[in-house]
C-alpha cells in the first residue's frame, strides 16, 4: 500500500509541476491573475509543499527534518491560499461573502500550518508530534475540503449554465466539459480530504491506515488525470468532446 501511495504522490506531484509551469507561463503572456493564482496553487502545494512535508520525517537529522517541514507547510498554506483566492476571484468576483470566505479560509490554513509546525518542534518523538498535530492537521484538511467543495459546486453550476449556452451557440463544448471535469476534481478532492480528516479525528494513523492511504492514493491519481484533461487536453479528447456535442445537437434538432 505504501508503494502505491508513493507512486500516486509522485504522479500527482509531477503532473502538478507541469501544469503549474504552463499556467504561470500563460499568465506572463496574458497578464491574467486567475491563471497565476492557479499556477501558484499547483506549484506551491502539490508540486513542492506536499512532497516536502511527506518526505521530511525521512530526512536525516532533526534540524533538516524541521527545516523541510516548516518550508513544506508554508508552501502548502501559501498554495492553498491562492486556491481560495482563485475561487473568490473567478467564480464570485463581485460577492463580498466570497472574499470574506476566502479570507477566513486563509486564516484557518495559517493557524493549521502553524499548529503542525509547533507540534513537530515541541518533541523529537515523531509519533508524539503526530498526535499533537492531529487537531491542526484536521483544521487544514477540513478547510481545504471546504475549498474543494466550494470549487466543485461552482464548477457544476457553470457546467449547467454552459450547457444552456451551447444550445444557443454561445459556448465551446470543450470549455463546458472543462467545468464538468473541474466539478469532478472538486468532488474527488473533497472526498479524500473528508475521509482523511475523519480518520485523523478518530485517532487513526493516516500514514499507515489502509483506508485514508487508499483514499489519498486514488484521489491523487484521479486528480492527476483530471488535471491533464482540464489544462492540457490531448487532441483525441478534445475531438471526442466536440463530436459528442455535435451528435447531441443533431439528435436535439
Amino acid at each position, binding site marked *: 500500500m505504501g508503494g502505491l501511495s508513493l507512486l500516486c504522490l509522485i504522479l500527482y506531484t509531477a503532473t502538478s509541476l507541469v501544469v503549474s509551469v504552463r*499556467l504561470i507561463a*500563460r499568465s506572463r503572456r*496574458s497578464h*491574467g491573475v*486567475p*491563471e497565476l493564482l*492557479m499556477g501558484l496553487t499547483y506549484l506551491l502545494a502539490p508540486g513542492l509543499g506536499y512532497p516536502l512535508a511527506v518526505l521530511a520525517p525521512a530526512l536525516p537529522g532533526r534540524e533538516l527534518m524541521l527545516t523541510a517541514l516548516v518550508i513544506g507547510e508554508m508552501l502548502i498554506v501559501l498554495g492553498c491560499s491562492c486556491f481560495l483566492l482563485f475561487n473568490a476571484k*473567478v*467564480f464570485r*468576483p*463581485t460577492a463580498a461573502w466570497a472574499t470574506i470566505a476566502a479570507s477566513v479560509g486563509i486564516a484557518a490554513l495559517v493557524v493549521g500550518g502553524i499548529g503542525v509546525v509547533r507540534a513537530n518542534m515541541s518533541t523529537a518523538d515523531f509519533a508524539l508530534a503526530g498526535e499533537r498535530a492531529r487537531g491542526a492537521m484536521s483544521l487544514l484538511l477540513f478547510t481545504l475540503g471546504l475549498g474543494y467543495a466550494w470549487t466543485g459546486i*461552482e464548477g457544476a453550476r*457553470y457546467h*449547467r*449554465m*454552459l*450547457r*444552456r*449556452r451551447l444550445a*444557443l*451557440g*454561445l*459556448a*465551446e463544448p*470543450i*470549455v463546458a466539459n*472543462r*467545468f464538468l471535469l*473541474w466539478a469532478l476534481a472538486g468532488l474527488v478532492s473533497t472526498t479524500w480530504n473528508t475521509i482523511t480528516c475523519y480518520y485523523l479525528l478518530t485517532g487513526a494513523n493516516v500514514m499507515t491506515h489502509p483506508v485514508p492511504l487508499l483514499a489519498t492514493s486514488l484521489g491523487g491519481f484521479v486528480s492527476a488525470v483530471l488535471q491533464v484533461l*482540464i*489544462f*492540457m*487536453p490531448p487532441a483525441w479528447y478534445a475531438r471526442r468532446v466536440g463530436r459528442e456535442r455535435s451528435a447531441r445537437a443533431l439528435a436535439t434538432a
Partner: protein
Amino acid sequence: MAGSAAFEAACAELERATSLDRWAARGTLQLSLMDSGLETASVTVKQLGVVIDRVLPRQLQSAGVADASPVCARLRDVLATVDERGAAEGAEAVFSRMGA
C-alpha cells in the same frame, strides 16, 4: 445586485419601449438570461444580442407584449452603443484560456 453595462442598458430601453415597469422589465430579461445560462452581472453585448434574437421574444409574449419585433430591434440598437471597456471577465473566459 447590479448588472453588466449591457444588461442595464437593455433593461432601461425595455422599460421605455414597452408598458412594463422597471421590475417587470428587469424580471423579463433576467428570465431570458436564466433560460440561456447567463448571469446579469457578467452578460456581454454579444451574448445579450443572441438572447434578444432567440429567447427574449418568447418571454415578451409571456409578459403581455403583443409585438416583440420592434422592441427587440430597439434593444439591439441600444446594445450597439454600450461601452464594455473595464468589464470584469467571466469564469468562462478564464477556463477557456487556462486549457488552451
